[in-house]
């Protein structure tokens, strides 16, 4: 356990030193702030700059609070995820390429704690950034538009946090398997986009999919409960995270063993 904490601290220190702990939360805060403001002023903006015919802007009513929160999650799912995936794509692959992990692994460090410390740090950074951004979004939504029951917001945010955790786990797992960081990012986007797309196109057969989680979180904002099949997709996601993490440790151990014995 002490060893694990040291590895975890090493990750945190590294990310503080290269400003990841500042700039990623700031990006999320910026996204979270902008969305409610844009939604609120969209009719005004269209009227002033859109060149629309008189009265057409009235066709864009100010959305409800829960809609704005859902739109914020949409922003997080696009730019936010892009930033997270690109920031973490080299987590294992990059260290292997520049030799840092050899320095660590010559010491009696277990492969499981090496990978799980990395995972815990990535998840923590992702969730802290998301929470920071979302708090600002909620504040602005309350200020400009309307309040949404706090319980709905917290439940929805937790569900969305699990989706982020899932994506981060995908990045880490692929990063142990594949050498090139760019390929890791590309494949992660492939997986997440396929999952979300399939989930929205074929909701009947994709009830288990982690890609359903963001639509469940929208439903939590709206009504305070998830859509049908919420528990199934929740359980499947947790299971898949556990499986991927074990796979990452297994693959990493095998690869490093191969390196050290030859």
């Amino acid at each position: 356990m002490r060893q694990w904490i040291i590895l975890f601290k090493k990750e945190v220190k590294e990310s503080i030193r290269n400003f990841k702990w500042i700039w990623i939360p700031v990006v999320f805060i910026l996204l979270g702030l902008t969305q409610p403001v844009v939604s609120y002023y969209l009719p005004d903006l269209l009227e002033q700059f859109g060149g629309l015919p008189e009265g057409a802007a009235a066709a864009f009513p100010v959305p409800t609070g829960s809609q704005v929160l859902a739109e914020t999650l949409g922003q997080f799912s696009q730019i936010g995820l892009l930033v997270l995936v690109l920031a973490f794509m080299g987590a294992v692959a990059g260290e292997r390429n520049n030799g840092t992990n050899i320095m660590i692994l010559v010491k009696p460090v277990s492969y499981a704690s090496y990978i799980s410390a990395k995972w815990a740090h990535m998840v923590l950074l992702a969730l802290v950034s998301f929470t920071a951004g979302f708090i600002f979004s909620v504040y602005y939504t309350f200020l400009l538009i309307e309040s949404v029951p706090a319980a709905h917001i917290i439940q929805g945010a937790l569900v969305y946090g699990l989706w982020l955790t899932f994506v981060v786990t995908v990045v880490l797992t692929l990063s142990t398997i594949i050498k090139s960081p760019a390929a890791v990012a590309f494949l992660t986007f492939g997986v997440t986009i396929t999952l979300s797309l399939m989930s929205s196109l074929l909701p009947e057969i994709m009830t288990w999919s982690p890609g359903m989680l963001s639509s469940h979180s929208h439903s939590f904002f709206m009504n305070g409960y998830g859509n049908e099949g919420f528990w199934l997709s929740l359980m499947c996601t947790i299971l898949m995270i556990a499986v991927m993490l074990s796979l990452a440790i297994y693959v990493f151990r095998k690869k490093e063993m191969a390196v050290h014995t030859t």
Partner: protein
Amino acid sequence: MDEIVNELQAVPWPVVAPIIIIQFLLMVIALIDCLRRGGETKGPQWVWILVIVFGGIFGPIIYFLFGRRND
């Protein structure tokens, strides 16, 4: 002149100011990092400074993701 003043007054500053401040903050952090690194960027440093300053929200993000060597 009066028109410009009116336009400026029409901007909802209490709402917009935090966004501008945070975006500025992001830019400053990126600039500090870029300058502290000296020549340790991918590609010429002055190009990155231009990207950070004139790239809007995405300038600093792109710098943080792709501009730094041995990250």
